[in-house]
Every structure is written in structure tokens, then in C-alpha cells.
């Protein structure tokens, strides 16, 4: 298991390196000159050359990438702008701050949103799916299946605004979505995020209900489940320790991808509920043509996906001994 993890992590680092190189090249190949933007109205060619030198963009792209990469581990001095401590993922000239600091500032919002919603939709989705699988073809199954079809056809910006209109403005049951750090006021943190969690959960739950149901129905008809019954094990025991064990794999896989995606930036959700997370940061950076920031966000998003993939692989190996490689 340890060797398995070491191999996966090494592979992930290589992938991240490749992603960062490609992203870097793509972004800097864009004909938008950051020096020009930072230079202002009274821009002389001398000024421009100086700024270029300070920004470190007077070099070729591979050399720039090398400096950038070095900055990640050793920090970097942007003469005339400031020093960027390691890990330095670049410097936002548009806002005069290191990229890493801004991302770290925004990350708690996105993490709270993602993990909170994930907890809700995982519990609801898997729970409903299990009930549907147990009551195959009965009323409960049909109700869960119809509800999940409805849920999966909804969109955040639609449900989000309707929910805000009814539950916040009209009925006053829930608070207007807002961001308060957990460490400042846990109650405000919770009440500010409750509506976004529920709305995200409505949309994601459906997928988990359907997946859990179909996986379980399939597993319950497997021969080894029948064998477990033939040994005299009880229905509940067989359901949870055999069928559910087999059903978990695909669900864990999709859950990992969903979490990674949410952490890489739930752009529409954060925009809908005006939450200052990574997603809104990305939108803002696009507006400002803040390439270093956008590069940082992109790498974070890629990193989140890669990270959760490793987690998924490890969990998968725990669930299914056939996956474990010596």
C-alpha cells in the first residue's frame, strides 16, 4: 500500500509539472503585454523596457517558466513590486499581491462550500439510493427515481435564485448567502453557507441517488451476494458488507471528481451567491487580464483534481483488494 501511494504521488507531481508548463506556455503566448498594462498612460519605451525587466518577462518563455518554477520553491523578487515568498506561484501585477496569498485567502470559502455541500449530497444521495435499491420497483423506489431525474435536470443559477427569492426574501427561513470565516463566527459561517450547500446538494444528490441505486441493484444480483445469503448471513449484513462494498467503488470515483471540480472553483455557484471563493477569483482575473493569477487558479484546479484522484485510488485499493498492486 505504501509503495502504491508513493508511485501515485510521484506520478501526480509529474502530471502537475506538465500541466503547469502547458498552461504557462498557453497564457504567455497570448498577445497581451502585462508590462503595457502596468505601465500606465505616460508610457515611454524606456519605462516599458524597465518594467519588462522587473517583471522578468524580457526572457524567452522557457526561461520565464524556469524562473517561475524556481520561485515556487525558493521565492522570487519582483524588483519594483515586492518580494514574493516561497511558495511563489507568481505575482499579480494588476492587484500588486502575490498570487499564492490571494488564493490562500479565497480557498477557505471554496473549501467550506465544497465540503459542506459534498457532505449533504453524499449522505442524501447515497441514503436515497440505498432505500430505492431495497424497495426495488415499489413506491419509494419510483419516488426517489423521479425526484432524482427532476433534480439532475435543474441548474444552479435557476434553483439558486428561486431559493433565494422564496427562502430568504419571502419566507425568511434562511439567511442571505454570505461568507464569514469559521474561526470568526461558526454560527454565521454555517447560516451563511446553508442555502448554497442545499442548492448544490439538490443538483448533485440526484446523480448519487441514481448511481447508488443502479450499483446496488447490480451488486445484489451478483453470485457472491447469493453465496453470502446461502451461508446464513442476514439480509442487513449481506447488504452492507457485501453489496454496498461492491457498489462503493464507482461512487467514490465520481465523488472524487466532483470534489476536485468543486474545489477548482464552483464558478457559477459562487457567482450566483456572491461568495468570494476561487471561482469568482477566476472570473475577476479574466476580466482584469490578470494572467499570473489565472495561471495560479488553473494550477490549483488541476492540483485539486490530481489530489482527489490519488485519494480515490487509495480508497479504491482499500475497498477492493484486487486493485492493490504489490
Amino acid at each position, binding site marked *: 500500500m505504501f509503495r502504491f501511494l508513493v508511485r501515485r504521488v510521484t506520478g501526480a507531481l509529474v502530471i502537475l509539472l506538465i500541466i503547469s508548463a502547458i498552461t504557462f506556455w498557453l497564457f504567455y503566448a497570448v498577445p497581451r503585454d502585462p508590462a503595457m498594462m502596468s505601465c500606465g498612460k505616460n508610457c515611454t519605451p524606456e519605462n516599458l523596457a524597465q518594467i519588462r525587466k522587473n517583471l522578468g518577462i524580457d526572457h524567452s518563455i522557457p526561461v520565464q517558466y524556469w524562473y517561475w518554477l524556481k520561485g515556487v520553491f525558493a521565492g522570487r523578487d519582483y524588483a519594483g513590486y515586492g518580494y514574493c515568498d516561497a511558495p511563489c506561484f507568481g505575482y499579480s501585477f494588476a492587484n500588486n499581491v502575490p498570487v499564492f496569498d490571494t488564493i490562500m485567502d479565497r480557498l477557505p470559502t471554496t473549501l467550506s462550500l465544497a465540503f459542506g455541500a459534498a457532505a449533504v449530497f453524499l449522505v442524501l444521495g447515497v441514503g436515497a439510493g440505498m432505500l430505492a435499491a431495497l424497495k426495488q420497483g415499489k413506491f419509494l423506489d419510483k419516488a426517489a427515481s423521479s425526484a432524482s431525474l427532476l433534480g439532475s435536470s435543474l441548474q444552479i443559477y435557476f434553483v439558486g435564485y428561486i431559493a433565494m427569492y422564496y427562502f430568504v426574501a419571502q419566507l425568511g427561513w434562511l439567511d442571505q448567502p454570505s461568507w464569514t470565516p469559521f474561526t470568526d463566527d461558526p454560527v454565521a459561517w454555517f447560516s451563511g453557507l446553508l442555502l448554497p450547500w442545499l442548492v448544490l446538494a439538490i443538483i448533485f444528490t440526484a446523480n448519487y441517488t441514481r448511481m447508488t441505486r443502479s450499483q446496488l441493484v447490480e451488486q445484489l444480483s451478483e453470485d457472491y451476494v*447469493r453465496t453470502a445469503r446461502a451461508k*446464513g448471513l442476514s439480509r442487513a449484513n449481506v447488504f452492507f458488507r457485501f453489496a454496498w462494498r461492491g457498489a462503493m467503488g464507482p461512487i467514490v470515483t465520481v465523488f472524487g471528481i466532483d470534489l476536485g471540480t468543486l474545489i477548482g472553483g464552483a464558478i457559477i455557484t459562487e457567482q450566483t451567491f456572491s461568495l468570494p471563493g476561487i471561482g469568482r477569483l477566476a472570473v475577476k482575473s479574466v476580466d482584469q487580464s490578470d494572467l499570473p493569477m489565472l495561471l495560479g487558479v488553473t494550477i490549483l484546479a488541476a492540483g485539486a483534481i490530481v489530489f482527489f484522484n490519488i485519494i480515490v485510488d487509495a480508497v479504491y485499493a482499500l475497498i477492493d*483488494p484486487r486493485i492493490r498492486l504489490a
Partner: protein
Amino acid sequence: MTSTDQQPFLSVRDLKVHFSTEDGIVKAVDGLSFDLLKGKTLGIVGESGSGKSVTNLAILGLHDRDRTAIEGEVVLDDKELLTASERELERLRGNKMSMIFQDALASLSPYHTIGKQISETYRKHTGASKSQARARAIEMLRRVGIPQPEVRVDDYPHQFSGGMRQRAMIAMALVCDPELLIADEPTTALDVTVQAQIMDLLKDLQQEFGTAIIFITHDLGVIADIADDVLVMYGGRCVERGTKKEVLRSPQHPYTLGLLSSMPSLDHPVDVPLNPIPGSPPSLLNPPTGCRFHPRCTFAEKVEGGLCSTEQPPLEVTNGRGSACHLTADQRAEYFSDLAGSAAN
């Protein structure tokens, strides 16, 4: 069946298993009766879909209760099984009666070690401690001939070879010394040498514990090896039954005869093609009228008045020997004499 003075350990009376499907009712088993004594082996033979496996799943109560209608009586050692509660059945399964399934790779849990799968059955029924159950699992693995059982006990099924998996399956089925063992084609997926080893193992274990065995197969060679009595199923019904010798040496039903003459034998001339039964097994959704075998039967026109297509021949049993066919005894003696007998050696 052979000796009538002994009380049967398992008694099945007029068992009917019907499934409701979208297309209608499938009569998978339609009126089956048999008895089984302790220490004896009943071989059930038939093509795929003849109701062999369904019968045995119904005995264990492992059918889908929502979609299955069951009638009849199944009495195991004075205990009626069809009306027993789920809880009572759970106590019996794996304990007093257990089952070996055909495909050991699919039938063993890929998520638990062999040892765990054997010992949990033991713990469930005996309340033994973890270490006792583990010791028992190792002992069972040794008994079924797994080398280094104290090491292999912690392996997962995918680390075992096909033959070893089947042995582990047998060890699992026998861990509580069951009095009834149902073996559903336990050797079909194995090569012939492993098959022979498994058969020997089952015979040894039967001698040791006096287990009653129901052996389901479509392989008459296997029947010749292991069975005491034989029951031939066709289309969800018993068409012929008797001792192994009676059924294999002097079959009384055209279907049994067809099965026997479609088997290759060592003295079969190589240039003469095998002699399969024409046609295919009947649809149980819409079975043929009269005798279910009549569309494939070469003797159907020999019966007067087209009786075969209109009337179900009754299964007449005397002293455990019987067949369900409209042919008269004289006709059978005339038509069957030169064809049968090769498999009983």
C-alpha cells in the same frame, strides 16, 4: 429411495416454482417430488433451464420472494422449509444445509479473504471466537487439500487458482458439518483432473460425515461417478428417476435415452457423428402442450391418437423407479434396447 424403511432426510413434494415476468408466468419447476436419505447422493440431470438450479435455490429459500410463487412441501428433517421464516432459514443455511455454487470466482466475495469467508459462516452458527473460527478455517482448508493453509487463509479469492477456489468454496460449505449439501455443477468450470479430485473429496467427506448430497449437473459421466439415485429433469418436471444403474443402463424415457446416446464414449467410432437430441429446450413461458418433450421426441408418432401432444404423461413411480412417457413398456423394450448402456460403466 432404494430402501423404504428409512425416514427420508429431505422430502420434496409436488414443488412448484413460478416466476412472474413481464411476458407472463414462467413455470420453472412444475410439480417435482423426490426423497433423499442421509449419506446418499441424488444426481439431478437436465439441460440448462430445466429447473435444476431453481429447485435447489427454492429449497434454501434463496429465490426472489417478491417475484416467485412457490407451492408444495419441502421437509428437511421434520422441518417444513417453504413456510419457515427468514430468520429460521438463516439459522439453517450454511449450518444444516449448505450449497456449493458453480462459478467459484463469481461466488466468492472478492472483498474478503478466504479465511474470513469461511470463518464468518462458522462464527455465525456456532458463536465461536475469532481465533477459534480462524483455526477452524485453516483446518477446513487443510482438509480440502489446500497447501500451506495457515498462509493461504489470508489470501483473497483472486490469488487462488480455479481448482483451489472451488476447494475453498467446498471448505466454506462444509465448515459447519452440514447434513444436506447441494452442489450446483461444482466441477463444470474445472479441468478433468481437478474435477476428479473434487469428486473424490466430496465422496470422502460424505463417508466421513454421512452428508446427504444433491448433485446438480448436465454431465452424465459425473453422475455415473458420484450418484446413488438419479432424477432427470426436463422443462421443469421430472421425466425419469431411479437408481443410477437403472437410469443409465436401462433408460425408460426418450429424453434420457437421447442424453445417453448423445454422449461420446471411448469405443464410439470416430467417423460416426455424435447423436444430439434435435431441437432446443422448451420455453417455460409457453411450454408445449401434452408431454413437454414431444416436439423433440423421435417416438412421439409411435404413440396412438397423438396422445403426446395433448396429454401430459403421468410420472408413475414404484419403489423409487419411474418415468413419464406414453410409450408402453413393450414399445420401450423394442425401441430402446440397442441404444442405451454406454454411460453406466
